[in-house]
């Protein structure tokens, strides 16, 4: 079956995300980045993956890859509840705007990010923000780690089952420290 957006009608234009077919691909992209940032939406704290939440896996990924975390909306509260305090709070549309600004120096004031990892936003909101970045942040690479295909990212999983997604996330995290 061809790769399709999760929301059937949200077809993208001529430029579409490459599909992450195996965890190594995601690992290679993340490892290659000089200045990655992880943007976590509120759904990450609601979605079950086995006996944990999606958020727990994403935070593990952040720790393993030493990636700064931005919690959008009220996600920061959930992140802090888990004892993870190195989190910035910034709304999703604001981070979108700033990532598209070549002059922005990032949240630590050093340098613009070169890779933005997205996960846990409402599908359509992530779709539109990634669309903005696709068009207006040419130097930025984006990767969507949800289990639904985000055509406007640079890389995305296809629409995969929760089981497959869970296994992929675990493998990405495991390999990240290598």
């Amino acid at each position: 079956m061809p790769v399709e957006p999760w929301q059937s009608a949200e077809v993208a234009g001529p430029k579409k995300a490459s599909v992450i077919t195996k965890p190594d691909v995601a690992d290679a992209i993340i490892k290659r980045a000089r200045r990655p940032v992880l943007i976590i939406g509120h759904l990450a704290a609601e979605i079950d993956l086995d006996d944990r939440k999606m958020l727990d896996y994403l935070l593990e990924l952040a720790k393993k890859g030493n990636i700064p975390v931005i919690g959008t909306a009220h996600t920061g509260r959930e992140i802090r509840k888990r004892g993870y305090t190195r989190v910035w709070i910034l709304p999703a549309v604001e981070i979108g705007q700033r990532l598209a600004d070549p002059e922005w120096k990032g949240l630590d004031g050093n340098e613009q990010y070169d890779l933005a990892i997205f996960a846990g936003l409402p599908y359509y909101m992530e779709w539109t923000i990634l669309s903005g970045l696709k068009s207006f942040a040419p130097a930025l690479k984006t990767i969507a780690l949800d289990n639904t295909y985000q055509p406007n990212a640079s890389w995305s999983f296809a629409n995969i089952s929760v089981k497959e997604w869970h296994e992929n996330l675990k493998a990405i995290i495991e390999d990240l420290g290598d």
Partner: protein
Amino acid sequence: MGRVVKKGVNIRIKELKSDIGDIRDLELSVGKLTSEKWTDPSGPTPFPSVTALRNWDKKLLERYKPFYMPFCDLCCLCTYGKCDLTGGKRGACGIDMPAQQSRIVLLAACIGAATHVSHARELVTHAIEKFGSDNKLDPGGLSVEVEAPVIRLVCGIKPEKLGDLETVLDYAENQISQLLSATHTGQEGNNLDFESKVLHAGMIDQLGLEVADLAQVSVFGFPKADPEAPLVELGIGVVDTKKPVILVIGHNVPPATSIVDYLQDNRLTDDIEVTGICCTAIDATRYSPKAKIIGPMSWQLRYIRSGIPDVIIVDEQCVRCDTLHEAALIHAPLFATSEKNCLGLPDRTGDPVDSIVVDLASGKETGVLILDPDKVGEIAVRTAQAVAPKRKKVKAGLLAADKIIEFAKTCTQCKQCRRACPNDLHIPDSMKAAGKGNTVMLSDIYDECIGCARCEQACPQEIPIHSMIVSADSGRTQKETFLMRTGRGAIQDVEIRKVGGPIVLGEIPGVVAFVGCSNYPKGGNEVAEMCMEFARRRFIVCTSGCAAMSIGMHKNGEGKTPYEVYPGSFDAGGIVNVGSCVANAHIAGAAIKIASIFARRNLRANYEEIADYVYNRVGAVGVAWGAMSQKAAAIAAGFWRLGIPVVVGPHGTKYRRMLLGRADRKEDWYCYDRRTGEKVYVGPVPEHLFFAAETKEEAMVLVAKLCMRPNDTGKGRAIKLTHYIDLHKRLFGVMPDDVHLFVRNHGDIPVSMKEEVMRLLREKGWKETTIPDPTLLSDQVIRVRSG
């Protein structure tokens, strides 16, 4: 400054002594004779042209830069296309992606403005036909002296009679035509100029809104600026299904008024139920509190499929395009009543009433087009009486439990329903459970379902998914029995006098308006929760349209709706339902009247100065949590031009651009101090102009923050910061780390939070700044200096 040049003869005589007598203030124009009694001096921009306020727009757009999120990568508007605009490419006409996105935003704003202005034209024409063009405008008797703040501000005229509104509509139609033409291939090519035109469309839209509500309040006897407008019944459960039931859907109220009149004239009021969905419903209850509101626009399918309505009358705007099809399925005759929404039906306007009733009651016709609203009343009532006895079986239209399970068993778990659902609802899992006899999950979906039925369209098994969701808990819709305050109309001048000072000084922490459609991400309850949070915090809460209905569909522990708990006055802690969509003009009007009545600024054709006043001083924020339509886009644009920020829900990102400030760029937040002429740093207030929030928690924190204005006094800023910090700590679990940007001196620091705020200020290396008399306009400084 440009202004619209009107062709034709126009003579103005200040004073003339002649043989026939003395004439004063006479203005003669072709086809019109108007007396000009308004002595306030005219400001610089009467009837502003498309570019007259471009400089003001640029000031806003410099601070609030558009962040475009293309909803489509292509342009397909001409035969050159489709053109791929990704990767910095230009289309065959030369347009680039930012310009194309802003062009589409302008198209949406023009559609919205045209819709409101056309609605206003229809109302005014109808009102003039019935009551005459000399009929006095009366939005609030002696309580409302500034009867039309938007018209006064934009056009520089003071309308007194219905006929005066035609001049406003002539202008508005002219402007929309010009704005729309700018979207043609090979016209405007710059995104910021498109954006300026979007703001112009919003301002024109606001004129249309004001004209429409001013006309209908004046002639239909709606509540006139009445804080104690009646509480009316709301919900499917309030309908007496034993009686014949009429349903009106849409926005244009004359057909509904004619139904109410016919019932009254024939002493049938207690025998027939008049129910409504969307704004026509609110306006029907403004006309007669005995009419009943079913719910917001998302209730259309669920109510029709319940089989309850015997006759359906649709007028215009936000009416489902498949209503005729749905009506036929429940054997309810349908009346189309607007030239804008004819639905392919035969025009029977000129036919005898008896023959129309016979044809509809016999099923010979499934629907008719009746373009004379006064005729609708008799035909609708008599048809309802005729068909109701035959429809008793259909009225139990909901699916029985065994039928639901039967349908669920045919589900193949292909997930096409969920992939079509705007809210990604867990329909497949619910189907699986229902197939095993457990319909609880299906029933739970009801609250978050926006009633679009895309799930059904996507289902290859043709399962009636939406009907199953509505039917899963058979008693559910019957439990929908609420009370809401009907639309009160304008805000009284005396209310403005009372709260103008506390708002401008910041002591009333803000005015928050919950408006717009019902495309909610997680159900309408979120709007009610937000509304009550701010009312409890003593903000002034305004509302209108579908949002006002969603607020009413909530009960507290004592079974009371917000409208029963909070007063309807424009005061701290009030929940003010102004009315239908077009009544949004009164919310803008209140902000304008603060400048005029409280601050005594000259209103007349003085847009820039008044917008500058509102932007810098009036802590107002609009929240359109379920914004869906082009009308909502136009309404938002009208508020942006006045400098009032608007927050939308996450679906609002599909409007494809935000107007976002950058708190981290200090250089963006300077304004003039009117007293000294110096440029001073005022902090990022308000931080954004158009913002899509991801969750209601994010929206609430942001709303509290967006209410801050440069003019806040120390006491006022401390109050506003208290709410911002408190909400941030409660909902985000931590102290906000940008408080230092909003503290100007020690007087701004909330007493109860002094220690933690001071700690943060020390960490951030905060330095005291001054509180200016703020303005973005250099000529305001000059005016003060020169006295």
